[in-house]
């Protein structure tokens, strides 16, 4: 665990995944949190917000991962990581990023990003081109965050993905995870400032 990297006594990371309904960001958050819990050492809580309708609309998923015994307030407040899959989310939540917080956007769906140090990656396009379906973009993002942060081993991430999908969908999602993990891993240096 890169607790020490955090240069804090204890470790807590707040992640928000935001976009629109149907992009699978609640699943992504769930898998991140599941992986954390499966480590056996970390605590995690995942929450989400719905719009006024029971289905559809904007979608937002918060994941807090920590080695505290308990995570009290379960929603993200100051974001360590924000993943924005659409413009609205980018504008709405960027202000909540910590000073050294990491902004990750889908470069196709959030074309105009002011923040220079933002990480831009074509999640959805990559999903389409490399795996043949845009639906797995969310799992690329999971892998990406996994690789970036390094706090969740690839093993638990794989386990979390495997146990979250039916047989038929597993392979594609594991592949997506792999891709994301690899690309994300290139940005680990950013974690130092967090």
């Amino acid at each position, binding site marked *: 665990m890169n607790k020490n990297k955090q240069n804090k006594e204890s470790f807590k990371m707040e992640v928000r995944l935001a976009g629109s309904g149907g992009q699978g960001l609640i699943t992504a958050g769930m898998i991140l949190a599941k992986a954390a819990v499966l480590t056996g050492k970390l605590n995690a809580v995942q929450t989400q917000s719905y719009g006024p*309708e*029971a*289905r*559809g609309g904007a979608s937002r998923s918060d994941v807090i991962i920590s080695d505290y015994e308990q995570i009290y307030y379960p929603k993200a407040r100051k974001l360590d990581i924000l993943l924005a899959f659409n413009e609205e989310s980018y504008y709405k939540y960027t202000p909540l990023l910590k000073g050294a917080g990491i902004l990750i956007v889908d470069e196709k769906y959030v074309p105009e990003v002011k923040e220079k140090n933002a990480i831009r990656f074509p999640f959805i396009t990559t999903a389409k081109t490399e795996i043949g379906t845009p639906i797995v973009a969310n799992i690329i993002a999971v892998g990406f965050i996994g690789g970036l942060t390094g706090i969740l081993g690839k093993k638990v991430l794989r386990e979390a993905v495997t146990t979250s999908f039916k047989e038929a969908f597993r392979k594609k999602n594991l592949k997506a995870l792999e891709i994301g993990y690899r690309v994300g891993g290139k940005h680990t240096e950013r974690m130092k400032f967090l």
Partner: protein
Amino acid sequence: MGPKSPIYDYLRYKKKFPTVWCPGCGIGTIMGAIIRAVMSLGYDKNDVVMVSGIGCSSRMPAYVDFNTLHTTHGRAIAFATGIKLAKPHLKLIVVTGDGDGLAIGGNHFIHAARRNIDITHILINNSIYGMTGGQYSPTTPRRAFAYTAPYGNIEPDFDVVELGIAAGASFVARTAVYHIIQMGKIIEKALKHKGYSLVDVISQCPVLYGRLNKMRSPVEMLLWQKEHTVDIKVAAKKSPEELEGKYIVGIFKDDPDMPEYVSEYQKLIDSLKE
């Protein structure tokens, strides 16, 4: 400015569109058919009241430029009863889902039918609870899947038409979203009918019912409707075996002579004046 077409005069399109409904959901198509029926009957929008309960289908009133009332789950017909009785000249259109109209709302349905009060009830029958995310309803067929019927539904479904007739409605019909022209005509007749008019419209919920029951697209579901419906006139010539698993569509009952509740009440008032 927005689009110009007579139908848009009947929509709150500036405020509310696009609708909340999922892609390919049949509710919007039915809404179009209702509006076109109202248009062709030339009703004044001020005289039309649309009342709904709670559910995906019950979101319809928000989109149409009538007097619109989105009530509680299952009770739309009872609210409509109060409105109609208090202001008899208003035209009451009630839209309900199958859960809304037949599960929690079943009692108001049979009693309004019994009273034969002049209300048009469009029952948007997608065989599932849409709004709450896919639980089985009183019209989910046996063996079909739903989130509360993960092993296949063991409950038989209502024959809505038979139930409506037995309860006392004076106009009872069934149609399907696929049968777009028939649907329009039937809704128009239902609106014109004086008395309780029930239209059971088979509709598609592609994201919940469809996905759970291996119908992957709205188009596939519409084609299913085509294949599983038989017109009442054609059905008359078929054997029960041939009709097994089919839904008969058409007008089953259309009796203009049954006493209508609000008129009967008016007669009572008049008789007391004498």
